[in-house]
């Protein structure tokens, strides 16, 4: 008898993420503005939604209510994670909006990027402030890193 194919199960209790209030939205978008210089207005065309530990961007629909009747699996783009008391930008969001950043962008050579991807950290000196940085290489935005004095830690997937 052949093996029965293993099938993933649909999440029947899937519920719509919550639309965040203005105060929470301002808090999340301020993080992007303060850390990377990406203006809050960049995200005006999008709703900010929240699940337990994540924030999601979703294009603002003419009406949200009809969509909320659907049993959804995912909604929009994973934007920011809540990590302990901090906010962490996601790779997806950085790759999409990182080109608009005006600060805390680390430009690596191809060799440095290759080492960072393999070894997950790199001895690195810069005058940037501690915290999450956008990693770019030869004009391409790769994702997120964490800069601590003297070293760069990879959050690239």
């Amino acid at each position: 008898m052949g093996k029965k194919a293993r099938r993933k199960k649909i999440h029947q209790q899937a519920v719509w993420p919550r639309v965040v209030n203005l105060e929470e939205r301002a808090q999340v978008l301020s993080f992007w503005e303060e850390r990377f210089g990406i203006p809050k207005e960049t995200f005006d065309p999008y709703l900010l939604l929240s699940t337990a530990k994540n924030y999601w961007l979703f294009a603002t629909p003419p009406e949200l209510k009809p969509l909320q009747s659907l049993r959804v699996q995912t909604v929009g783009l994973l934007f920011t994670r809540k990590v302990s008391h901090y906010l962490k930008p996601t790779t997806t969001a950085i790759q999409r909006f990182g080109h608009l950043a005006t600060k805390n962008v680390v430009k690596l050579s191809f060799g440095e990027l290759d080492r960072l991807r393999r070894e997950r950290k790199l001895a690195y000196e810069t005058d940037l402030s501690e915290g999450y940085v956008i990693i770019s290489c030869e004009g391409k935005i790769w994702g997120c890193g964490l800069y601590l004095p003297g070293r760069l830690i990879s959050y690239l997937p």
Partner: protein
Amino acid sequence: MVTLAEAPAYFSRYQEIIPDFEGFLAHLKRDLPLYFRLNTLKCRDPELVIKGLERQGAKVCPVPQIPHFYRVEPKNFPLGNTEEYYLGYIYPMTLNSALPVLALDPKPGEFILDLCAAPGSKTTLIAQATDDRAIIVANDRRLDRLTALVANLKRLGIACALTTVYRGEEFPHGVPFDKILVDAPCSGEGRYRQGYEGELLYQKEGHTNLPAIQKGLLIRAFDLVRPGGVVVYSTCTINPDENEMVVDYLLRKRQGRLLACKYPQPSHPGITEWEGRVLHPDLEKAARFFPHETESVGFFIAKIERLI
């Protein structure tokens, strides 16, 4: 499974509707060209991608008739293993796959349902065409296929789509969709060529009645779209039983009309008679695309407006 030697006999049923039938048979022996779409949501500078791929040994040329599409040589170049793919700058897809989206003509702010969306080439093109501003419901009945769709949405950085896992025929009412794309499961005859190892779907499954599934999907899509809205029905097969006959069934059951469309690829009108049966005259406004005339997968597209 049909072998290349059996192809003339297999396709002889379509001899009347395939132009230059000998040319079509000869074309089955050749590989299709390799194309990709530039994802302008993430990459605004095509040179970044072109130079990157050329450094890896590919030759890249823009396709003049379809914006953001590029042809790649050699045909076996591993696009899926490149950093341009990994970063979501490109989506490898065949040229004619873009045509149903051109027929749909999506606009920012519209509610759009992609009923059979996985793995997401058309969903992501709709998002790109509306600068990530349409509201796309990307549905697929199979969760394993949805995983690929979600991965592609993530890779391409799309924020205007949500995903659902409903049987298309049972997709719930309640959202006032402006436009719906039904890129229906089909026998895939338009993809058939030498070296293709997959069996034709309806032969493989034996009991799968594809036209019945396609009719169910199209009727449901029509009932879901708002009056005045548009449903685009497409398949990558030549078989009229899965194309004109399905649309004819809809036009006899519901109040709709076909809309003519201009395409950037050579096409032929839909047929209005098949195996002695006269079909709805509107079907000549549907379009058929053949592999040997388009250097791509064979396609059928019908754009239908809901009247009431």
